């Protein structure tokens, strides 16, 4: 039974319409001003879009973790951003070691694979511990309880990492083989960005294969349909839930390394914003929906990279890039308010 709000609340609908109009006007006016001023060359735009896709694929990988967990537990794993951070922070030390010993440049593929593995395993372990310690005992609790727990866990993890590894940000060593650009159909793309996009695509294909084709994947879908029925069918629900967290953790760990490839710097607080943005992406695509998470991630990534310049560049707003987070958050707020089921979302589960 869905709760229906009355149609005739004037104050509320006035405010909502006001919000719609303000946003529409700002977007139209801003874009018009920028495009007519011709401040940015087509090359610059293309650069922004490619960067957006790269960063969007990182968001998409994290978003998959939110969506998978939401699919089986109908809860927002608020600490998922920190799962992502833990992997990247831990693997940094391996990467630094490889960088100093020269192994990284001598054998970039093997080195990268090891770094990926370390990050993914770390994130996976954190995700499993999180589920086991913080969420499992609360599975039947009222909805706000696991959410508050998740917020607490997020703070706990990030600040533990801050204590253990120190609070300064770390710079991943650069890889010679990944310097420079690649010519793709006549479009020059930074090699790192190409690697990021390709890895993300590979991982997503692997995930889809896992969910659609393997036994465990099918069990996962059964659990997300109905836990009780799944249990009756002989599925070990607890194990499937842990597996879901583990898979989400693996993807988040991989996303951590991709993030490091794009942005170079990692620190204990890096989980917060990408975490929220990935959540936005998941909702944008329709939470609980795997394809939606990917689509949402890419959309948000591009919006966030192009948006500040497109909307604010022409209006002579000083340092528009400062406001990129505002764009992401505004998208979040607007999507949740006006389209909580997202682009591809299935209808909301019962309350």
């Amino acid at each position, binding site marked *: 039974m869905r709760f229906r*709000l009355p149609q005739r609340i004037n104050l509320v609908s006035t405010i909502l319409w006001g919000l719609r109009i303000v946003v529409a006007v700002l977007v139209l006016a801003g874009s018009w001003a920028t495009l007519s001023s011709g401040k940015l060359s087509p090359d610059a735009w293309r650069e922004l879009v490619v960067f957006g896709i790269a960063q969007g694929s990182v968001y998409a990988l994290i978003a998959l973790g939110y969506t998978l967990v939401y699919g089986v537990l109908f809860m*927002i794993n608020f600490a998922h951003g920190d799962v992502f951070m833990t992997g990247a922070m831990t693997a940094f030390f391996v990467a630094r070691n490889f960088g100093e010993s020269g192994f990284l440049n001598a054998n970039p593929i093997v080195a990268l694979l090891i770094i990926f593995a370390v990050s993914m395993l770390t994130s996976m372990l954190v995700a499993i511990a999180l589920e086991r310690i913080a969420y499992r005992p609360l599975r039947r609790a009222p909805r706000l*309880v696991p959410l508050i727990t998740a917020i607490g866990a997020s703070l706990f*993890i990030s600040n533990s990492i801050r204590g*253990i590894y120190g609070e300064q940000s770390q710079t991943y060593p650069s890889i010679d083989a990944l310097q420079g650009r690649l010519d793709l159909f006549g479009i020059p793309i930074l090699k790192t960005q190409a690697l990021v996009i390709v890895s993300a695509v590979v991982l997503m294909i692997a995930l889809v294969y896992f969910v659609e084709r393997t036994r465990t994947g099918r069990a996962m879908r059964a659990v997300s349909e109905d836990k009780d029925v799944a249990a009756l069918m002989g599925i070990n629900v607890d194990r499937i839930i842990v597996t879901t967290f583990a898979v989400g953790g693996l993807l988040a760990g991989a996303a951590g390394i991709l993030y490091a490839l794009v942005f170079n710097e990692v620190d204990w607080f890096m989980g917060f914003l990408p975490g929220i943005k990935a959540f936005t992406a998941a909702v944008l695509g329709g939470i609980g929906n795997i394809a939606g998470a990917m689509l949402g991630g890419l959309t948000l990534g591009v919006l966030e990279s192009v948006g500040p310049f497109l909307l604010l560049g022409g209006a002579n707003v*000083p340092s528009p890039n400062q406001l990129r987070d505002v764009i992401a*958050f505004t998208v979040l*707020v607007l999507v*949740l308010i006006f389209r*909580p089921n997202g682009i591809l979302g299935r209808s909301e589960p019962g309350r």
Partner: protein
Amino acid sequence: MAELISRRQLRRVATIGAVAAVALLYLCMVGLIEAFKDRNVVTGVITLGAVMLLAVPLIAGYRAALLPRDASASRLAAWQRVLFGLVVGLIAGAVLGVFVVIASAVDVRGVLVRISPPLLEFLSFGLPSALAFLAITGLGGLTGALGALLLVSPVRIRNAVTSAVIAVVFMSMIEPLLRPRLEQLDYTAISDFVYKSHGLTEAAAILFLVVGAVAAILWQPANDLVRRTVDAAPVESRRRIRRWAIGVLVVAVLILPQVSGTFLAQVAVLVGLYMLLALGLNIVVGYAGLLDLGYVAFFAVGAYLTALLTSPNSSLGIGLPFFVALPIVMLGAGMTGLLIGAPVLRLRGDYLAIVTLGFGEIARVLFESDALQPWLGGVQGILGIPSPFPPRIDLDLGTMHIFATGPQVLYYPIFAFCALAAVFAYRLSNSRIGRAWNAMREDESVAEATGVSTVNYKLLAFALGATTGCLSGALFAVQLGSVFPGSFDVFVSITVLAVIILGGMGSIPGVILGAIVLIGLPELLREFVEYRVLVYGGVLVAMMLLRPEGLIPNRNRQRELHEADSEEEQETLDGDLMPQRGTS
């Protein structure tokens, strides 16, 4: 042959030992031990770092002895339980010992930045590796056994020991409060007896141990006595007792800054600001069940509006007097509450949390941005907010001399507002409004069908919460004399949430206690500042797992007037009491 320890028990003991070991390693790696290893509890005897380390095997030993809850449990002898404790402690100690040995041999600081040579020296008692390992393991085992011993000993002894230890730790923690004040008031003799260059003296430690133990032993009978007296008293005098209690509390709050000196007053001002925030958020989260993670936005709006209206240096530059500006600020706050509340009305609980978080972050980024710098001052903020309160109060009332400066002055208006907010919130919670909120929190659609306009009540909760938050922001701006966007990050929201969760959602005494514990205590432990958020996170998780109703749960209103009725109860349906049909 009777088994010494069954397989299952062995597994449990091993698990607890492993958890304890991880906890010990965690404490060392995260830096807590390093931070507290030089903070004396009893000078020359024990430091806070050591207390923390020892607490782990102690608790683990206690837990292990508690363990076998199955049928065989009754057959377990006390010595077997102590053995469990010992084993658990040995496991934890041995793991830490191995870690210390390894870390002393290999430099791990490149990764684990907190494992410094001084820390290792502290952990190994300065002994060479092999001996250090034995010492740590032994100490762990001993403490674990001690924990188990506590469990098997009679309740009174257990309580006495616990309370004695808490008394000593507490007295050493409040040294920064007490000692300067004692010296200032010329009680140097007392101060010298109790404290010795950071930490308690041995004599004082023994004294507090005894006091703590005696207090615990006397507590139960005294409590019973009070309870019985109060229960026996008629309703009227019970009311009077309560009124007296509140009166005493008020007087205590009033004279506190007088006795405590400026440092505590400063802490109290901070506690008061957060208390006010928490009282406001409590309406939204505790009463109405709307998890608002962007509460800091209202705090910021209150501070910035105050700055804009009262500071002559602001972009508005009109420099209104504070008390003229305040109603405008609160009105603006209420409007902001409605503006933020209206769009999120329809959202489910968890989405609402994230959207409000988004609003909070948008507010912060906007306040910080260069784009709005001409109006809001960007990163530099707004300076020169005049305080409406006199810089010092000097009153001679014959018998009493009241003197206050700086934070001591601000203390009074802040707590006046807190008291007002608490009273208002209390009245609301016991009215049909509070009930409607609670009903909405419990089941929104049933509440609506029962006649509660959920739209209106949500908006009301948001508006009232926003107004209270803004008030706190206004006082904060005045206290600082300036506002900076950096003061309004998401951690303010989280801190306030932690205060409410710790105290108990919907419980006003809980909120007050929560603010004192979570805001006040860290101020006393300077070393702690860095670990504040870590602890808040831990508090949120632990409370949800162990005691979701909070330390002081929201007591459902007792009906003093109707206790007599409960005698004449009827199990059957044929009572002869038929109510009148109400006028409608």
